């Protein structure tokens, strides 16, 4: 019987780890980010009675229960509906030039004969390798790209608020990132938007996996003033006097009705092709000039996942603080499901790397969110749920680490 410890964010009070991969039952599902506010209860990944997470269940189904030839036929049918004949763009591929979007855009153009326009919601702070890969995507991969960088003054303030109010510095970024695909589609008169893999691969509701189309709720809103950035609504930012509605142009989600009228559809390529992140790495190295990080990414063993934004490591650090699982857990869980590593190996790696602090860009992150180191740790410590963390000899220790 576990002690009666408080569990923040409405998380399950008993911490459990999937018997097949290494993810814990504290992992939050994808949420509509612009509705994200302080203190809200989190929906988490589902575990079945055998203690297996829904992502693993989905993967078993993926390996055995899906006819991928049929799915590819569906893809061909879908694409032929939208394929342009007059040289105009016919599909928007949102992405940063990482292995997944590199694969998606390149394969749509060169295998399926589409005319993609890639659109990038700029990372907060490009890493050197991220920038290089982005350029190579165009120069070597042979693709067109629009890089959209939002007003940094506002973005920084929103990120700062997100960090201190939600301990979720990436929240404003994710809002913009989700919107840009459909928003650009509408602007360019393109109907089809194609993402890479479905987040459901990682444990969102199973129903989302059988549906190739992204739920419109994620990127459209009928009440913009109520959209929240860093836990603060657009109305509040404007009322404070520093900003006007003009500044929020990049974040204003298209209205549902407008998207429907324009015929915009957002699909996941991962529904139509048997998605394997590692194979995306190989493909992008061979076709779009992608290069892995020359050194191991902090907090994990990997070198090629999510390497373009200096703020990225802090996203994972905050998941470690709030949910007890860091970057390594995410990477390792995915590789176990895709049969690249065994669960024992994953356990070893998680125990070795998950709690590693991302030192390299710490100073730049503090500058970006205009906070001192003291303020950083104060906020971090406030967000440690008692059912996940305990203090021993002045050090914070995780109560539970995954084991074999």
């Amino acid at each position, binding site marked *: 019987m576990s002690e009666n410890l408080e569990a923040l964010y409405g998380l399950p009070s008993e911490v459990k780890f999937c018997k097949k991969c290494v993810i814990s039952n504290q992992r939050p599902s994808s949420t509509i980010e612009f509705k994200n506010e302080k203190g809200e209860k989190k929906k988490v990944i589902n575990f079945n009675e055998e203690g297996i997470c829904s992502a693993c269940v989905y993967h078993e189904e993926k390996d055995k229960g899906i006819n991928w030839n049929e799915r590819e036929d569906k893809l061909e049918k879908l694409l032929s509906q939208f394929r342009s004949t007059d040289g105009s763009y016919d599909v928007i591929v949102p992405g940063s030039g990482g292995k997944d979007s590199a694969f998606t855009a390149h394969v749509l153009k060169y295998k399926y004969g589409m005319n993609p326009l890639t659109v990038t919601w700029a990372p907060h702070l490009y890493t050197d390798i991220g920038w290089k890969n982005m350029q190579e995507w165009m120069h070597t991969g042979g693709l067109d790209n629009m890089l959209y960088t939002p007003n940094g003054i506002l973005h920084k303030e929103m990120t700062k608020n997100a960090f201190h109010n939600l301990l979720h510095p990436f929240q404003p970024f994710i809002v913009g990132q989700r919107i840009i695909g459909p928003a650009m589609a509408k602007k360019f008169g393109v109907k089809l938007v194609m993402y890479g893999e479905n987040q459901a691969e990682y444990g969102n509701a199973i129903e989302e996996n059988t549906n190739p189309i992204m739920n419109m709720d994620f990127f459209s809103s009928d009440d913009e003033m109520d959209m929240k950035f860093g836990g603060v609504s657009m109305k509040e930012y404007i009322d404070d006097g520093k900003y006007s509605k003009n500044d929020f142009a990049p974040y204003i989600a298209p209205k549902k009705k407008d998207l429907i009228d324009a015929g915009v559809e957002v699909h996941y390529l991962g529904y139509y092709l048997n998605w394997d992140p*590692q194979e995306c790495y*190989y493909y992008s190295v061979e076709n779009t000039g992608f290069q892995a990080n020359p050194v191991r990414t902090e907090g994990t063993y990997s070198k*090629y996942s999510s390497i373009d934004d200096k703020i990225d490591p802090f996203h994972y650090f905050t998941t470690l603080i709030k949910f007890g699982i860091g970057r390594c857990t995410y990477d390792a869980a995915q*590789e176990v499901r895709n049969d690249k590593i065994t669960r024992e*190996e994953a356990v070893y790696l998680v125990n070795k790397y998950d709690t590693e602090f991302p030192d390299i860009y710490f100073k730049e992150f503090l500058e970006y969110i205009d906070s001192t180191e003291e303020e950083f740790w104060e906020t971090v410590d406030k967000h440690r749920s008692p059912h996940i963390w305990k203090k021993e000899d002045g050090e914070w220790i995780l109560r539970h680490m995954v084991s074999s």
Partner: protein
Amino acid sequence: MNKKRIIARIDVKNEHVIKGIHLEGLRKVGNPNEMAKKYYNEGIDEIIFMDAVAAYYDRNSLTEIINRACENVFVPITVGGGIRKIKDIQIALNAGADKIAINTQAVKDPSFLTRASEIFGSQCIVSSIDAKKISENKWEVYVDNGREPTGMDVVEWAKKVEILGTGEIMLTSIDKEGTKRGFDIELYNAISEVVTIPVICCGGAGKKEHIADVISNNGVDAVALASILHYNIESINDLKEFLINNKNNHIRL
């Protein structure tokens, strides 16, 4: 006339042969013992087994593979990956390996190379060096299977390992390996000017011409091939014939 050697490099994870790019990625491409046997029957001169994930898991586990390989493969076998103690070397040799490749541990503790050479003989100690280009004619030594930079210059380190007593050097270009776009010729030119122990080039072979380009260097004694063989791009025999007929190289048929 002494011959230049064509070597197959087989990276292993558990019971699979894997092949990455830039020492990253674990794509499975076959079974280690079957592959070794196949290459032996096709005329390979030597085989190198590398434990691709020893660095991740602080272990090394090729003993079983070597045991089996020695039963069917009668050319020299080198083993590397996670060799950290004298005991590790002894175990590998007892399992049937002829040479042992050492990378990370030699950088951490250079005297390890000397001790190993004194105990087992320098002819069975290979210094495995992973190099990443940092600027024109400058390369940095990486350890932990290409994950951690060391700040050391590759040419200086190569000179040093010869002095420490190693018998051979295997030099892998991280930038080229797995890409099939050719070797880092400048790297091998730079090294071969400063060492008098055998040098094995590794990383980047995608077609016969690549190998011909690098092997014509007098200071190069052997090439280690992976992708070009594992993905069946060239057969060992075709490759050898090409090197002999077109480029006048001295190769064993």
